């Protein structure tokens, strides 16, 4: 096993999957000649040629719309959106077509495309390089959504997404793209969608998160005196409801951490599931620690926006005292 960063793990997955299946191709802005602005696609153009690692025109709706047609021609396009907020122009194609086209053919055609993008804040970037857009994706019927938090999952989940017969959106935590390193299995490696990852076991309280908020929860768990369970959702749709409910049943106290703005974020969905299915297990309220319902701010104050270890610790404290 090699020690890789998240972005290296993504790059590794792409190499392995393009090698394995000649119908996999990468499409996006600057993915070819430059190897991606984060170098997630570095080396692909040299190895697989400019057709299978295609520098597209600057048009996100065009990228995703073209990908729908590529699927119809038998390709499995992996589309890169350069940044989270620059994926918004593709929402129309995603909602009106990507999520519906299979249904529209009476289930006869498959649309095995992947949309992957770096997401999230904390990187000291100008505005619109910092969004956590998962709600827009996870609310959309017909697509699946996954957000890995470790290098190994970044590789395995992307591979699963590429092999999946349905459209999958993968958000990659750019804050940890290069800084978070870990062991990553070499060669083919798949982490199935729909399974949460129990990061650490505990009895008093469960911290639920995904992507860049998992390390925050781990740090909070380190700081806390209590016995803290940390659950990495990692696959938002399909969701591992069993893992969520099992942990809630065990600890009876749940704090959900999400970087996106609060209203209708994925933490709301998780809390709603708990309110419906775990109400008798709960020893206290389900708390959410989230980004605020405001535009992602100027980077000089972005740390105050991002859910911090202190905010998570505070929420757990409240819950334990409840």
């Amino acid at each position, binding site marked *: 096993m090699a020690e890789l960063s998240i972005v290296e793990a993504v790059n590794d997955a792409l190499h392995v999957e393009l090698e394995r299946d000649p119908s996999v191709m990468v499409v996006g802005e600057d993915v070819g000649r430059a190897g991606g602005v984060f170098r997630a696609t570095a080396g692909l153009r040299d190895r697989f040629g400019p057709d299978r690692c295609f520098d597209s025109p600057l048009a996100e709706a*065009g990228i995703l719309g073209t990908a*729908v047609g590529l699927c*119809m*021609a*038998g390709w499995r396009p992996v589309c890169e959106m350069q940044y989270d907020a620059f994926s918004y122009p593709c929402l129309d194609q995603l909602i009106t077509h990507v999520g519906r086209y299979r249904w*529209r053919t009476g289930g006869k*055609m*498959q649309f095995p495309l992947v949309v992957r993008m770096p997401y999230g804040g904390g990187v000291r970037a100008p505005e619109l390089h910092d969004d956590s857009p998962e709600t827009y994706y996870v609310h959309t019927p017909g697509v699946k959504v996954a957000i890995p938090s470790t290098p190994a999952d970044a590789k395995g989940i992307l591979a699963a997404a590429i092999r999946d017969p349905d459209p999958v959106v993968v958000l990659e935590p750019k804050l940890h793209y290069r800084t978070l390193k870990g062991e990553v299995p070499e060669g083919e490696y798949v982490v199935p969608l729909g399974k949460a990852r129990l990061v650490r076991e505990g009895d008093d309280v469960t911290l639920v998160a995904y992507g860049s908020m998992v390390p925050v929860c781990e740090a909070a768990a380190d700081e806390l005196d209590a016995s803290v369970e940390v659950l990495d959702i990692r696959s938002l749709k399909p969701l591992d*409801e069993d893992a969520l409910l099992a942990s809630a049943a065990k600890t009876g106290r749940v704090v959900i951490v999400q970087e996106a703005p609060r209203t209708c974020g994925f933490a709301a969905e998780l809390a709603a599931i708990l309110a419906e299915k775990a109400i008798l297990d709960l020893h206290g309220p389900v708390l959410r620690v989230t980004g605020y319902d405001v535009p992602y701010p100027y980077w000089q104050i972005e740390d105050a926006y991002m859910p911090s270890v202190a905010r998570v610790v505070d929420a757990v404290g409240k819950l334990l005292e409840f």
Partner: protein
Amino acid sequence: MAQVLPAERDLRRVIGDADGVGDREVEGLGEQELLDLFRSMVLLRTYDERSVVYHRQGRIGTYAIFWNHEAMQAGAAHALEDGDWIFPSYRESAIGLLRGMPPETVLSWWRGHPAGWWNPEDYNLASICVPIATHVPHAAGLAWGKKLKGERACAIVFFGDGATSEGSFHEGANFAAVTRAPLILFCNNNQWAISTPLEAQTRAETLADKAVGYGMPGARVDGTDVLAVYEATREAVDRARSGDGPTFVEAVTYRTAPHATADDPRAYIDQERVEEEKKRECVGRYEGYLRRAGILHDELAASIRSEAVEAMRAGIGAAEAEPPADPGLLFEHAYVDPPASFGSDLDELRRILGG
């Protein structure tokens, strides 16, 4: 300042007219092909006229009328090979009939019944695109993807004059140009987008002018002249197949019917103009051409018409004979591999519907 050569502004025509322009012949179209083309137009016309009746009778839902658009659809479709892909908008909902799709499929679509959803691969015909222009990139992607695989197929995408204002049209056209995709961008310029006239949609002198900005050829053709449409499309197909990339075809017609059955155009369209345009409607024009050429006579015309009427009668019968759709279908087609929650949702729904 960039300008389009005025010589290119004229609409291509093959069929002569009362104004003294003579009929021309189109290379490669023998008597059999010419009659096939007529058969296609009559089938489409019959589909359309019957559908308006069926709608009035409450047998289909809202319906987008394509009367006087048949020449564009038939002319373009005949310029393709069966392996070529068609990307229709709602205006070309019945174009599948020209690929052997039974009328009941299309009628079922307008009846909101799942029997109206087909496998695009069965006819090399994409699903009907309801949102304007969003299928243009699909067609570009398919055409490019086929080319990348070394296949012979090209694609055609139909859209309206209004569609040229959408970003999706622009991005799809540019993608096709950049990838030199074998694509025909076929613009049905019927001069109205619901109630919005062409001059409120664009300041371009012609819609074909838009081709310039993508570095692709643009052609203008009389959209009520099926032979001109055929010829221009075939040239575009040849170009696509020989690796020269996409072509924009602007076919000009006039929407003489309401936008759809729900629409009342009296508020915004000049009815005199409509009556004027109806006189040169495309099926009649072509019928005149064939009769002048001695290819069509009363008996043959009548039998082609009654064949089409019969097909529609059978079609609506078959559509209405479809068993009611099962609510379980709600959960069946969204995913190859659906989330676990679908099972319990369906169980609950069945319990409640059963009770």
